[in-house]
C-alpha cells in the first residue's frame, strides 16, 4: 500500500449492492421460501395419513420432540430452517405434526441453533484468554435456552399455557369466531408451487414416491432460499454491524436487546448475529454482560422466520401454522421475561457460561466434548433408543 491507498479503502461494489436490486432479490427469495413451505404441506398431504402417523409417532413423547428439534437444527445449523419445516408440517392439510407435538421441537430448535456460535468460538482456542471470553459469550446463549426450556417445557406440559395463548392470539390474527383464515398471498404462492408439483407428478407415477420427492424438493427450496436470503442480508448489513455493535456498547441494556432483535430480523438468522459477537468478545471489545442482551434480542428476532413461514400456509390447517409460529415467539418472550428482569435469574446463565469457559480453558477437550455430546451425541442417542423402545 502506497500513496493511493493510504486513505480509507471503500468496499468493492457487487451487483447486490444496488438497493433496488437487493430488495428485488430479497423479495424473490422470500417468495421462493414461502413456495417451499407451502409445497412441503402439499407433499405431506400426498404421502397419506398412515405413513405420516408412523413417521411422526416418536414426537408424541415431548422429550423426544425436544431431542429431534435439537438434532435437526444442529445438523442444518439453522433454527430458521427447522422452525419453517415445523410450521410447514403443522400447517399441512393432513396435519402430520400436531401443534402439541411441535412445541417441544420448537424449543429444541432454539437450543440447537446455539451450536453455531459455540463452534465459532472454538476458532479462539489458540489463545487462552481470548477463548475464555469468546466461549463464555457463545455459551451464555446455550444456558439461557437450557434454563428457558427447563422452566417452560414442564409448565407447558402441565398447563399448555404457550399453546393456549398462541391459539388465542392466532384466532385474533386470523379472525375471531372460527372464520376461515386466508393467507394474503395464497394465490401467488400456490401458482409458484404448481409447476413443481405438476412436473414431479408427471415424471413419477407412484404417488407416495412423488410425495417424497416433493417433500425433498421443497425442503431444498426452503434451505437454499433461507441460505441465500441470509447471505444477501448479511452482505447488506456487514459494514454496519461493527458500527452498530460498537455504538450499542455504551447504551442501555434494553436498547442492546432491541438491536439484537432488529439485526436478527434483518439477517434472518440468530446464528449470524450471535456469531458476530463471538470474535468481538474474543478481541475483548464486547463483554459478556454487554453481549448477553444482544443475544437475547437475537433469540426473539429469529422467531420472525417462523411467522413468515406461517404466511405460506393456505389450507384448512393454516391457523395451526400461525399458532406454532406464535408459540415460538411466546416461548422466547416468556424466557426473556422470566430470566432477564430479575438480577439473580439473569446471573444464572452468565455464571454458568463463565464457569464452563473457565473449565474449557483448562481442558479444551471438554469444550469439544460439550459441543459433540450436548448438541449431537445425546440427541442422536435418544433418537436411536426411541426406535428400539417404541
Amino acid at each position, binding site marked *: 500500500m*502506497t500513496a493511493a491507498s493510504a*486513505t480509507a*479503502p471503500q468496499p468493492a461494489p457487487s451487483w447486490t449492492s444496488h438497493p433496488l436490486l437487493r430488495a428485488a432479490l430479497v423479495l424473490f427469495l422470500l417468495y421462493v421460501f414461502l413456495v417451499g413451505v407451502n409445497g412441503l404441506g402439499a407433499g405431506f398431504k400426498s404421502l397419506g395419513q398412515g405413513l405420516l402417523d408412523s413417521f411422526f409417532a416418536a414426537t408424541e413423547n415431548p422429550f423426544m420432540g425436544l431431542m429431534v428439534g435439537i438434532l435437526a437444527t444442529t445438523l442444518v445449523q439453522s433454527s430458521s430452517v427447522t422452525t419453517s419445516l415445523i410450521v410447514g408440517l403443522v400447517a399441512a392439510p393432513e396435519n402430520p405434526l400436531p401443534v402439541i407435538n411441535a412445541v417441544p421441537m420448537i424449543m429444541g430448535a432454539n437450543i440447537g441453533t446455539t451450536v453455531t456460535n459455540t463452534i465459532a468460538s472454538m476458532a479462539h482456542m489458540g489463545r487462552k484468554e481470548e477463548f475464555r471470553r469468546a466461549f463464555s459469550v457463545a455459551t451464555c446463549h446455550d444456558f439461557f435456552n437450557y434454563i428457558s426450556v427447563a422452566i417452560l417445557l414442564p409448565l407447558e406440559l402441565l398447563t399448555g399455557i404457550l399453546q393456549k395463548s398462541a391459539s388465542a392470539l392466532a384466532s385474533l390474527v386470523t379472525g375471531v369466531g372460527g372464520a376461515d383464515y386466508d393467507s394474503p398471498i395464497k394465490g401467488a404462492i400456490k401458482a409458484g408451487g404448481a409447476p413443481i408439483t405438476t412436473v414431479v407428478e408427471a415424471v413419477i407415477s407412484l404417488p407416495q414416491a412423488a410425495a417424497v420427492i416433493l417433500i425433498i424438493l421443497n425442503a431444498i427450496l426452503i434451505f437454499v432460499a433461507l441460505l441465500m436470503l441470509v447471505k444477501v442480508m448479511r452482505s447488506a448489513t456487514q459494514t454496519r454491524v461493527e458500527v452498530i455493535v460498537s455504538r450499542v456498547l455504551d447504551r442501555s441494556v434494553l436498547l442492546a436487546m432491541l*438491536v439484537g432483535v432488529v439485526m436478527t430480523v434483518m439477517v434472518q438468522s440468530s446464528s449470524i448475529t450471535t456469531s458476530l459477537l463471538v470474535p468481538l468478545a474474543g478481541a475483548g471489545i464486547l463483554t459478556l454482560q454487554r453481549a448477553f442482551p444482544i443475544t437475547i434480542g437475537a433469540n426473539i428476532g429469529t422467531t420472525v422466520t417462523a411467522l413468515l413461514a406461517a404466511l405460506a400456509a393456505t389450507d384448512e390447517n393454516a391457523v395451526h401454522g400461525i399458532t406454532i409460529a406464535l408459540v415460538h415467539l411466546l416461548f422466547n418472550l416468556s424466557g426473556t421475561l422470566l430470566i432477564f428482569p430479575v438480577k439473580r435469574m439473569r446471573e444464572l446463565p452468565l455464571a454458568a457460561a463463565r464457569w464452563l469457559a473457565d473449565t474449557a480453558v483448562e481442558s479444551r477437550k471438554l469444550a469439544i466434548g460439550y459441543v459433540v455430546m450436548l448438541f449431537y451425541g445425546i440427541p442422536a442417542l435418544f433418537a436411536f433408543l426411541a426406535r428400539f423402545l417404541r
Partner: protein
Amino acid sequence: MLRELLSIFRSGNPLSAMGENFARMLKLAYELTDKAGEIYFGKPATPEERTYIYKQDVRVNKLERKIRKQVVAHLSISGNTASVPYCLFLMSLVKDVERIGDYAKNLAEVVDIRPDPLPDDEIVAELREIRAGVESTFEAASEVFAKSDHERAVELMSQGKDLAHRSDALIGIIARKDYDASTTTAVVLGTRYYKRIGGHVMNILSSVVMPLHKLDYYDEKAVAADEVSAP
C-alpha cells in the same frame, strides 16, 4: 428509544469513521504541540493552560484506544481482508501520534525544571527554527495523509530529515557550550523532544509513500526510483 435505535442503524462506513478519528487525533496532537512549544519558549502559562495540556493529551490517548477498538472490531468481522493494510497502518500510526502527545506534554513540563526564560542566543534561535520546521511539517501532515499526496509527502520528509540532522548537530553544540546544568538540561530536552516529535511526524508521512511492511523505514532512493514495494 426508537430515535436512538434508528440512529444506531443509520451508521456510516466504519473505515471513514476511523479515518475521521485519526484526523481528529492529529489535529489535537498538533494543537497540543503548538501550545507546549509556547510554554517551553517562555510564554507564561496560567494553571488553566497547564491543565489544557494534560486534558489534550488524555483526549489524544482516548482517541488512540477508540481507533484501535474500531480497527479490531472491523477486522474481527470476517470478510474485511481488503482493509487489512489500512487498518494495520492506523494501528501503527495512532501509536506515533500518541507518542507525539507524550513528548509535547513533556516539553511543557521542562519549565518545571527551569522556570526562568531560555537564554536569547544562537542555540535557542536554532531551536526556535527547528520548532517552526517541525510544526509546519506537522500541520501539513494531516492533509497530506488524508489526500495521500505522494509528492508533498516526499518533500516534507526531506525537510524532516534535514531538521533531524540539525537537531543532532545542535546537541553537539550544546555539549560544548558553558551553560549551567539546568539550562543544559532544558535545551537538550527541548532539542530531543522536537527531534522525536519530528520523527513521529515522519512516520505518519512515510505511510503515504512506503508500503506497510516498510512503514517507519523511509528510503529516499527507493522512493525516487519508484521501488518502494521491493522486499
